[in-house]
């Protein structure tokens, strides 16, 4: 591979870069979804793909989410690698039957005769002042389903590397894009086709006093909190879970073994969230290392408020700092 100059890219541009790269590399990769072809996607994640790869490989589907998922299952069963876009996570529920009953089970129920190497991409999360049904974080619904991988990137470079892996993975991947940070900042992304590993957490910042576990858009608040606490001499280890299923507990456990304290942050509703799973595994495997109860800082168990009150739902840096301070003060 010749070395390419690094490009400054936003997260959504990194999605586009990875899609284009993989479509060039592998002609079995196809893109489908609502408004993905001519319009380039409502967030422009698929911009330019139709022009480069044509309508046979970049398909504007009818407005039917169950169909999009079902068609992707059918394509994948025949060896294509469909990357289907669900326009917003709030509209993914019609596709659930195909995700759960077919995509997640095809390899298992045919004992490996058929498989389902598809990616279902969906922008998710709040904080962009969107209308009703456009701000949900329901990643736990997918993380509960055996047979799926659930991946949430949190930076342009990780988006590029993880999306490449997701497309190359031989099994279905739910790829949830935190749309609040789609254009938050630009980062150097080298379009060299180098994938990042799935099924592992990324330790973004090493620390010795406390482990801060999060994913998606909240990674940014977590890093800000860690920065501010560093000024007070508190050393926070920040872990970006990145792949919610299967969950890399090893990385989290090693960190907690070192720090003895853990705070989990997620935008999704608190009860039965992915944070509960992490906390449960810490209770099972890290009890003797823990010097304080594991704390969850999470969304309320309410429907995502309309945007006028969205700020009351969203988790702010101060809350994370407070949660860390409380956990450090314990015992």
């Amino acid at each position, binding site marked *: 591979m010749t070395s390419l100059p690094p490009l400054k890219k936003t997260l959504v541009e990194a999605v586009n870069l990875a899609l284009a790269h993989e479509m060039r590399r592998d002609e079995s990769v*196809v893109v489908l979804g609502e408004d993905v072809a001519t319009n380039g996607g409502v967030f422009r994640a698929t911009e330019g793909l139709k022009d480069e790869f044509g309508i046979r490989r970049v398909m504007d589907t009818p407005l039917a989410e*169950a169909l999009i998922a079902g*068609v992707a299952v059918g*394509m994948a069963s025949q060896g294509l690698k469909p990357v289907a876009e669900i326009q917003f996570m709030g509209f993914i529920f019609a596709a659930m039957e195909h995700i759960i009953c077919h995509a997640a089970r095809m390899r298992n129920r045919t004992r490996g005769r058929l498989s389902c190497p598809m990616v279902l991409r969906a922008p998710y999360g709040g904080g962009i002042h969107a209308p009703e049904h456009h701000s949900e974080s329901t990643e736990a619904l997918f993380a509960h389903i*055996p047979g799926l991988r659930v991946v949430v990137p949190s930076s342009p470079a990780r988006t590029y590397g993880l999306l490449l892996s997701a497309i190359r993975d*031989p099994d279905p991947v739910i790829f949830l894009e935190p749309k609040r940070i789609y254009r938050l900042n630009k980062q150097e992304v080298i379009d060299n086709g180098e994938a990042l590993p799935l099924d592992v957490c990324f330790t973004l910042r090493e620390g010795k006093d406390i482990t801060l576990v999060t994913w998606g858009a909240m990674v940014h608040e977590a890093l800000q909190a860690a920065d501010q606490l560093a000024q007070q001499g508190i050393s926070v280890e920040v872990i970006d879970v990145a792949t919610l299923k299967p969950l890399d507990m090893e990385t989290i456990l090693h960190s907690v073994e070192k720090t003895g304290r853990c705070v989990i942050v997620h935008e999704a509703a608190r009860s039965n969230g992915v944070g509960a799973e992490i906390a449960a595994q810490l209770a099972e495997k890290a009890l003797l290392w823990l010097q304080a109860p594991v704390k969850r800082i999470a969304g309320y168990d309410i429907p995502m408020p309309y945007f006028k009150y969205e700020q009351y739902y969203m988790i702010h840096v101060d809350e994370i700092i407070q949660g860390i301070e409380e956990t450090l003060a314990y015992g």
Partner: protein
Amino acid sequence: MQATINNNPFSKTVAQFNIAYTQMINHLGEAVAHLDPDIANEKLLTDLYKSMVFIRLFDKKAVALQRTGKMGTYPSSLGQEAVGVGIGYAMNPNDVFAPYYRDHAALYLRGVSLADMLLYWGGDERGSLINGAPQFDLPNCVPIANQITHAAGIACAIKIRHEKNAVLTTCGDGATSRGDFYEAINLAGIWQLPMVVVVNNNQWAISVSRGIQTAAETIAQKAIAAGMPGEQVDGNDALAVYSVIKKALKKARAGKGPTLIEAITYRLGDHTTADDATRYRPPEALNKGWELEPIKRLQTFLHNNNFWGPEQERAWITQCEQNITQGVEAYLNTPDAPPEDIFDYLYAELPFAMEEQRQHLIAKARSLNANKKEEESL
């Protein structure tokens, strides 16, 4: 159709349609249409007949296996044989089949072994390995109508790769009430997909009759709004089913678009072995169903044309019974897979996070099996 509605001068007729109905051999075994000698030859007609006889005997055996505790819940295909054999003979091996769950005849003709079919209904995933059948055929689809959207995806794959085959999918009459059905035929219409949808309208979705399933006069006409042709066929007439499907597949393979075929049959059995149709199905309707059933009529036709006689019938039944016995033996004698099989095909490679659960399962299974052996030895 009215040219104007409520005297609205701006209304216009945008569609007028007839629904074709094909029947070639009626329930009395009489030819009721011109039979193309290239199609309706002795070989094909006897093949269709023999396969229907075979699958009915197999079906009876499968129900008996369930009743005697040797297999799980099973959906009988009694009375549906003509649809299955019509599909089986009309499809090419390189076409792709996306079945629902009452397609035993078609599966058999696609090359699925009896043992595999029994394994599937016997609760063993290896039944969906379907050794001997085309590699890319989908397994049985239990969630209603989902297979139709998968078929649309398969048809897209065919089109994207410029291949010359087609996909055929099946469903029951109840499935045509589901969004998946409408969403898939809508796509097939827009993209002119190489796809044939065969609706086995057997008049019952468990206990809900055709009359209260949809207000549409025919199921075939649901295709019209999707921009594709829909037609009906006598689903008890194997030759007619074969002919219309053959034609539709040929059209699909030639890139000339999809077809919806409503095959009108009658479900002579229960929905599954877990159902009791006497709770909701009037006996007179069942009797009427038996008058129209598919096997007797073709037997009569073959007899009358000297294609088939009692001696061949006896020999064939003996042959069928031997094959079925062999299939059942193969099923019953299939060694158990190792318990960890339930983990080993979930992902291409088992994620590290699941290894602990897998080890737990192995230990648990060992303990369960040891206890079982101990109980047996007492």
